Structures are given as C-alpha cells and as structure tokens.
C-alpha cells in the first residue's frame, strides 16, 4: 500500500508561505521541460538513425526492381536517394534541416514529411487523447468507488471488468468489438462510404477499444485506489469529513490531479503504441499506419519524423503533468 509521503508536510509549508505568482512558477517549469526535451530529442533521433542504418534492407526496392539492375545502376539509384553519403553527414544534414522545420520528403510518396505528419498526426492525437481521457475517467471512477467503499457491488464489477479487459490483447478486442457491435448488433457503422472518418459512430468504437483495452486500465485503477486510500486517511480529510464538508472538493488535488497527471505522463507511450494496432484494425488513417508502412518500406525520413513526433507527444504529456502538478502545488516548482 503505497502512501505518498510528505503530503502533510508540503501542505503545511504551503500554508505558512503563501504561494506567490504561481503563473511564473508554471512558466519556469515549462522552460525546464523544454530544455530536457531538446536533450531527449537528440538522443532519441540519434538512436533511431543508427538503428535504421544498421537494419537490413534498402529503400531503393520501393523504386526499382533491385534484381534487374547492375551494381553500377544500383549505386546510381542510391546516389539519387542520397544513401551513398556517410552516416554522420546524413545525420547532420537531417538535423540541420529539422531545426529549420524541414523534415525532408517521404521516399515513398514524395510528399513533405511534415505534411504527412500533420495529416495523420491529428487523427492519432484525437484517438490517443480521447482514449487516454476515457482510461483516466474510468480508472478514477473505479478507484474512487473502491476507495470510498460506497457502492461495493458496482466497484467490484468495474474492478473485475478492468482486470479482464486489461488481459485481452488490443487487436483481438478490436475484432471482437467489430464483430459484436457492427456485425451482430449493427449498432455502429463499420464505415460509411463517403466521409467514414468523420462519422461519430466510426470514431467511438476505436476510442472505446483503445481507451479500455490498452492494457493499462487495471494497473491505473490499482495505482489510483492505493493513492486515494492513502489520501483519505490524511488528517485534513478526516477533519473535512467531520465538518461535513464536500469530500471531493478537498480530495481532488492530492487525490486526483497529482496521480492522474503522473499516470497520464507514464502511460502515454503505451497508448501511442496501442494506437498503431487499433488504427490497423479500424482502418484509421493515423500515424500508426503511416509508421507501419514506412517501416516495411524503409522510408527513413518518415520514420525519423514519426520518432520525433512521438517523442514530442510523450514529452508534451510530461509537460502537462508538471504544469498540472505545479499548479496544484506550487511548492513543487522549487
């Protein structure tokens, strides 16, 4: 039972020293995050770059039938694609362009990588963002019911559901949900022929599947419950209860904002990974499908772009966490 230590102390300190200009503290925290992010990006992109360079395969196969060519012709193709330059040169050129906002062109489609990322990225963000919210909402509700022991039957049912669904592989869950809700019950459209991707019913199923089935639900629920139980035993909560004050108003900062924001930051990468699978199953034209195709093709610029974007999204999750926690407890900015 992990009871977060020091909560009482921090709150005591805060009461003694009134929090001055929390906005500035948030800003300072954001700047610190940005610096960390820059360092992380260099590391991640360099690792990805080296990994791609060591992986077998050649993007030239996308353009020509390699076995039809002589060695000289193949060399000419590689030259056209800029693959004949040395690795450090290629990385430095890539970084130089990236800093100016140019991620190059997809080797596959010839379109600018930034455009491909925008076009698919917002869909992935929509999917992962909504799914993450659903995960957190479900986790928070279940944990709250369990910790307060108010509706033991509902709490038990939700808890069991969380365990079972977390144990199911997400792709399988996807097929199952399509089979039940679309094929059997006909509740949701599989896809409408025109504007499939904007139909709300089409949107709802993947979010449900990714939000509930990304495998982190039971873990998050347990974590939140442990945290809440700890907070509920705090003196100030007992006092609030004794006074008959609304429990949630006193509970939300330490009981919800703190743990939920760290869960968000920690689990975002898992949800992003799950999105790749869910996008395949639901024909969701997002970044997951882009990266899957790019990996099969060895489309280096796209892979580098997606690496960069994913790292940024994960860091953004961290920044949101930091900002939320500092806003809830400005003491943390110190």
């Amino acid at each position, binding site marked *: 039972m992990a009871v977060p230590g020091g909560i009482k102390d921090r709150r005591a300190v805060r009461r003694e020293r009134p929090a001055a200009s929390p906005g500035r503290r948030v800003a300072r925290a954001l700047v610190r995050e940005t610096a960390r992010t820059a360092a992380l990006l260099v590391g991640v992109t360099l690792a990805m770059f080296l990994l791609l360079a060591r*992986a*077998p*395969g*050649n993007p*030239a*196969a*996308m*353009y*020509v*039938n*390699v*076995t*039809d*060519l002589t*060695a000289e012709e*193949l060399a*000419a*193709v590689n030259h*056209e*694609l800029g693959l004949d330059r040395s690795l450090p040169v290629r990385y430095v050129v890539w970084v130089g362009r990236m800093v100016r906002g140019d991620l190059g*062109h*997809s*080797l*596959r*489609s*010839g*379109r600018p990588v930034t455009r491909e990322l925008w*076009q698919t990225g917002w869909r992935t963000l929509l999917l992962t963002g909504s799914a993450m919210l659903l995960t957190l909402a479900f986790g928070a509700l279940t944990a709250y019911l369990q910790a307060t022991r108010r509706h033991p039957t509902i709490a038990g049912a939700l808890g069991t559901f969380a365990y079972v669904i977390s144990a199911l592989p997400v792709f399988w869950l996807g*097929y199952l949900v*399509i089979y039940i809700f*679309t*094929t059997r019950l006909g509740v949701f*459209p*599989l*896809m*409408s*022929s025109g504007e*499939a*991707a904007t139909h709300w019913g089409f949107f709802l199923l993947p979010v449900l599947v990714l939000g509930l089935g990304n495998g982190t639900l039971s873990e998050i629920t347990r974590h939140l419950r442990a945290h809440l139980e700890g907070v509920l035993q705090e003196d100030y909560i007992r006092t609030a209860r004794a006074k008959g004050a609304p429990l949630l108003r006193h509970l939300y900062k330490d009981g919800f904002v703190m743990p939920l924001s760290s869960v968000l930051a920690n689990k975002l990468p898992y949800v992003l990974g799950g999105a790749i699978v869910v*996008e*395949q*199953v*639901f*024909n969701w*034209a997002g970044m997951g*499908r882009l990266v*899957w*195709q790019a990996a*099969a*093709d*060895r489309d280096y610029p796209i892979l580098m772009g997606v690496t960069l974007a994913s790292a940024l999204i994960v860091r953004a999750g961290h920044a949101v966490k930091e900002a939320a926690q500092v806003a809830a407890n400005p003491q943390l900015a110190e």
Partner: protein
Amino acid sequence: MRRLVSLALAAVVAVPVAAHSANLVTRTDGFPDGGKLVYGEYGRPATLDPVTSNDMVGLRLTELMFNGLVSFSPKNEVVSDLAEKWEISPDNRTYKFKLRAGITWQNRMGLTDKPATADDILGTLDVIRHPKTLTPLKAQYELVSDYRKIDNQTLEITLKRPIVNALGRLSFKAIPTFVLKRPDFLGRDDSFVQNPIGTGAFQLMQTSEGGDVVMDVNPGYHKGRAHLDRITMKPFADKNVMTQAMLFNALDMIVELNPRDIAQVEGDKRFNLYPYNALSYVFFGHNARNEHLKKKEVRQAIAYAINRQEMLDSFYAGRGTLISGPFAPGSWAYNLDVKPLPFDPGKAKELLKAAGYSVTGGDGFLQTESGKPLAFTLKIPIEKENETIKRVVLVFQNYLKAVGIKVDLEFREWQAWKTDVFVDHDFDIVIATWAFDDSADISTLFHSGETGAWRNNFVGYSNPDVDGLIVEAKTTLDREKQRTINQRLHQVLAQEQPYTFLWTLTNYAAVQKKVRHVELHPFRFFTFADTWYIAKKDQ
C-alpha cells in the same frame, strides 16, 4: 468543404468541354451510363503516375487513368490503343506507329482539349530512360536503341535487336511531359506523381486524407465515354475488415479477396466472384551451395516427400494448380507432358539412402556415415498477413520429418529476408514466390552467370546444359523454336529440382451483382473497365 469546392469546379470545367468537342466518340454497346463503383484494396499506392508506380495497387489505378501505344485483349493479344496502326520493318527492329486522331489529355489543371502527340509519347520514353527517373520500367526499355518523330501523329521506335513480343513490351503508358516540373525526368518530389494527368477513361479528382482515390469519367475519352460516372479506390490496412466492409455494402468490389473469405462471399447472393490467375507461383528454393542440397537426389527426395495436392486442397481449398516447372500453366512455354513429381515417401527414402544418408541418428533423423546430419534451415519471409504460408511450412516440416530430414523454421522480416537470400545467400531452403512474365523469360533464374549479389539465381544453381538452353532460347526469334527449347528446359528443371515447384494460385475478385459486363485482365485488371456498367435501376 474543400471536397465540395473541387467538385463544383469540375462541373464548371466539364460542361463547356462537352459542348465544344464536336468529335466525341459515343459507344454503341447500348449499355446505360451512370452509377458509381467503390472498390477496396489492401494497402495504399505510393504514387499514381505510370512511370514511378511500383506496386500492384498503383499499377491497377494507372490502368484506369492512362493509355499506351498498344493495349491487350482479354486473351492477352496486343491490340491498338493510342496507336491506331503500326508497321514493322523487315528486319523486325523498327516499329512505325500511327497515332489515333483526336486523342486529348484529360481536361484538368488548366489543360483544355490538348491533343496528345508523338512528342508526348517520345517524351515519356525520354523520361523513363533518364538516369534521374527512378522507375522499374527502365530495364525493360533498354532494348530500345533509337526513336524519332516523323510528324505529330507518327513516330518510329528502333530496337537494339529483334525480340519476340516486342510490341507487347512497348505498352508503356504515356504522360504529358510538358506539365512536369522538369520536362526531362520525373522524381517523386514532382506533384505529378500524386496528381497525374493521362488520356484514360477515368481522371483523378482527388485523393482524400484517408487515402481514397476518387476518379471521375473522362467525357473526352478516345474510345468513348466509359459507362460508370465515378470509381473510388479505398485502401484498407486489414483484409478482414475489408471483407466486412464489402459485406456491409460499403464496397462494391474487392480486387483480390482474402482466400479464407472466399467461401463466405461465394455463398452470398449479392456478389459475383471472378477468378483470375495469380500469374505467380510458389516454390521451395534449395541453396545449391549447401553440401546436401547440391545433390540432385536430396532435392528430388524433398519433392517426393511432400503431398502438394493435399496442401493445396486443405490450405487454399484447392483453388490453384500444381506446377511441375517454372512457367505459367496454360502459357505457351509450359510443358504439359511433364507431370509434377508424385507424393511417394518410400521413393524419397530410397533416394536419400542412395545419396549416402543411411544412418539414423539418435534424434531419429538421417545422417551420413561420417555423422553429418541431414538438417536444414528454412527461411520464411514475414509478409503482410500471410497466415497460410505458416501452415504450409509447418506441414512441410512434418513431411520431411517423416522421411528423416530435419528442418528448422526461421521467420525473417521481409527486407531482412531479402538481404539474407539475395545478398548473403545465407539460407538452406527458402519459400518464395515468383511472378510470371509475359515473355516466359527464365534466363536470370537458373543461368550460372546470375548467381552474384542481388541476382535472381540466388539458389546458385549451375548446369551447363541449362545454361546452353537458356542462351539458345534467348537468341532465337522463332516463337516455335523458342517454345520447343522452353519445353525442354521445363523437362530438365523438373528432373533437376533446383526448386520444389508448388503451385500457382487463383485469385478472386468479388463484385456486387449490380456491376455488369465485368471483364478482367489478369494482372492489369482494369483494362476493360470502360465497358463495365450499372443498370439504371441499380444506380
């Protein structure tokens, strides 16, 4: 919103054209115009123009939007297309084409009734042959030595040497090179590759962010307006979902139905199934550099040890044909007198014994008297969703176990597999697929001069007789003589078993019954789509 705008614009452009073009060709088949067709493909095309396109999805799309000098009939005979007629010089090297009158580029991106001329056709050849254009077509047009324009409607192409079926090879699709970013070559940074203009029956309207490719009928098509108003291609990332989409009426057609869904769709009254030959065959390739596999008896024993008909029946519901050699069954080169080696494990054991594998080791597998075990690694490429191949290799492993050969399975990611097989030659046995070629040219597959890195004879097969036959087949111009040589080659290779030839599969297109007069070209698919129609009541 943007979609609506582009449609409105198209309407504005199309109306005056219809009024002004006096020489519009009308169809006389009496079928009604109108209706839309939405079809599903597995995967998205990389590019949409006919020069850089290098995947089946894209190649099928280009068949709707472009034309070549010549095209093909349902029987795969060469027929006129952009070229109305042609003359061949007595030495079979020079082809003089006369273009059809009144062919225009599609009225898009500022073009209005712009005629397609000899300059455009030759410009396309220039682009294909330019070193900066990366295209799979380049190797094919190395046989061209010279070409020139005679007048706007006439052009002449000269080959380096006479070859069989040269006309069929000159079926490259023409593009309006004058709209390219650089008129002499085509790179993927050119917006033309995603937004091309052709002469075809359908013209590109838009590609949605989800990857849907929307094409509307080209009213000025030189063979007459196609019947359908619009064809839309929807890409899918999952074959199961694609079939589901069709069963929900979100699709009118699937180009290549997932084999395991065939039975279900076949039983559904809403659909017709159209079989077409996959034009490829599956085989086990044996690395001749391996000390055991270089023995003919071992390769033959492997063929005798496996029951191919049973594999075909149980994994593909028998939808295919067993083959005994490296040609398409039914093609002119295939030797029907050569039968596939039968399933005969007893014979396999005899052959292995004769080859010196007489001792059974402690693990139950055969070995030589000096204790070298008869064990191989089978490398399997992990291709998109190919579940059936997994079952095939597992059964293969069991069949060989029954005659005393040990096989370990190793699955490799596709590109890694290719590097292992084609560059490092690091494998004992592979399972792979070759696509057939119109020309039945197998010279690169089994000639001993083709065994280097990235060459097609990756099994390292070497046989002076086969080399001789291959060279002879390549240099003769007499189709009959070529047939005789190829049939002889077929016979030799069936005996030699450099590959264990398995089968060629039948593909099925599933089409809603409302779409009528559906005729398919085996690999170009949409060649005759301009004659498909939907009855008025079904539109």
